């Protein structure tokens, strides 16, 4: 959903009022969940009980059994095995988006804030223009041009999310450089580059990390949507989005089992990532305010 992307822009600027000093149980649980999902996806080829495309026709569209812990889909494929294998693409694609977006967005935002003037105006205007494209539309356009697959949509999404990261980094940097310590360092003879690298960047890094995390969650939803529409991952490869798409016919026959686990996988992963990102951005706003 591209409304989620809107949140990135606004959530970062809206001050949170929650205060937290130690990581809450929720944050710990989120980190644990993400850790398990990541490890499981890496080990997937070793630990899957069945081949992901092996069919067990006699047990199709089944609920959890001792043979198939999470049941089977409409063609009798083992849901657990497919979930584990699907996790690889489901995690890697948004990771790529988050990494590219964060790197480019941080660089642009920081440069715009520090250089200012016409450069800032051009960068900000360009980001405004990209912002007018819903991220999902950019991903769909990429498919229209380059055909179904993940590489083009990943690049398109990375581009689409740059304004969110870029704007937040820019405003955080502008806020930071207004503090007298930045002026002090200039008066002490340090170069602008040294001040940026040694002081401004480290102080806004938590905000950047929070945005990277949130971007990962949003990109995951976009890519899952693309695969659900049949425009992303192409068979025989699978990710969670395409698993949900393949469960649609079973659902229409009244069998809800087949959507439960892939649906939960997406929701819980995005939830965990968002909890993590929000706690990071809370910590940052807390730190910057307790300094007053």
């Amino acid at each position, binding site marked *: 959903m591209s409304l989620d992307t809107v949140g990135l822009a606004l959530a970062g600027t809206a001050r949170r009022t929650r205060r937290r000093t130690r990581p809450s149980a929720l944050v710990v649980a989120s980190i644990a969940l993400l850790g398990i999902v990541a490890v499981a996806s890496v080990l997937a080829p070793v630990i899957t009980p069945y081949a992901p495309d092996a069919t067990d026709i006699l047990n199709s569209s089944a609920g959890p059994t001792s043979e198939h812990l999470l049941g089977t889909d409409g063609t009798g494929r083992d849901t657990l095995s497919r979930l584990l294998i699907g996790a690889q693409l489901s995690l890697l694609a948004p990771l790529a988006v988050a990494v590219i977006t964060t790197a480019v967005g941080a660089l642009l935002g920081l440069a715009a804030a520090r250089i200012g003037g016409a450069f800032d105006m051009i960068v900000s205007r360009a980001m405004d223009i990209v912002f007018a494209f819903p991220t999902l539309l950019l991903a769909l356009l990429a498919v229209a041009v380059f055909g179904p697959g993940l590489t083009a949509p990943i690049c398109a999404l990375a581009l689409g999310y740059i304004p969110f990261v870029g704007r937040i980094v820019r405003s955080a940097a502008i806020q930071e450089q207004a503090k007298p*310590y930045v002026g002090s360092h*200039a*008066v*002490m*003879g*340090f*170069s602008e580059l040294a001040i940026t690298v040694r002081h401004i960047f*480290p102080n806004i890094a938590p905000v950047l990390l929070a945005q990277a995390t949130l971007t990962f969650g949003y990109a995951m939803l976009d890519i899952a949507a693309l695969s659900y529409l049949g425009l992303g991952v192409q068979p025989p490869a699978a990710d969670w989005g395409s698993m949900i798409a393949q469960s649609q016919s079973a659902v229409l026959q009244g069998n809800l089992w087949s959507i439960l686990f892939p649906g939960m996988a997406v929701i819980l992963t995005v939830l965990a990532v968002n909890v993590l990102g929000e706690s990071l951005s809370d910590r940052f706003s807390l730190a910057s305010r307790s300094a007053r």
Partner: protein
Amino acid sequence: MSDSQNGETVLRATGLSKLFKSTVAVDDVSFSLKRGSSLGVVGESGSGKSTTARMIVGLESPSSGSVEFPGATGSGRRGRARLVQMIFQDPFHSFDPRITIAEALEEPLRLHFDWSRERRQARVAELLDQVGLSTRQGGALPRTLSGGQRQRAAIARALGIEPAILVLDEAVAALDVSIQAQVLVLLDNIRRDTGMSYVFVSHDLAVVRYITTDVIVMRSGRVVEAGQTEQVLADPQHPYTRLLLDSVPRPGWDLDRVRRGRLELDSMKETS
């Protein structure tokens, strides 16, 4: 005052002006500063006093006019840093929150002096001692120190570069009264011991009287009165200076005088 008459000139501002978009923040301001003297820049909000301070240290560039440091050899940002340092009003954000006070004090030493690590650290200890901070406070992060302690640390950091001039922009305005007095005494002693010159920007006439030898009074970007501090405060020539003085609260405060002073000033504006 004798000490301000004998010293050589270390700073000369000539016809300084600053425009922000279409508003004139500073309008044709000139003054000079002698070695070892302390110049007060007095005014209310919008007087251009802070902008003037920022032009002296190079944080703003003048739209016209010039800031010269006669007899100075260094050039560029690092060269100017050896000549003039600045203390800001807000003690809470004067330091990078991630590094300790001692590290923050050592940073400029590394930039400006080719010293060994031991020598730098010895100098940091000396600076902390000079402003009355303990070694333990030096090892702390800025946020664990009080406003007054941070302002002392900021002074120590500036002293480390051994500048000829220290610009203080409302440096004691944010502090509690009892802390403000401590910092004023410290500043007064430092100037006496080191022969450093001050440009002391403030809205508080009593503080300016305590810490400066000479003063310029600014209003709407212009200098309306200049002279030796004691003389200007004892016998103000400009109606605005008189109004400022009358406005300072004291027992037996004559608020009617303030009203008349304001009327006089307003009528002046209309005739000029």
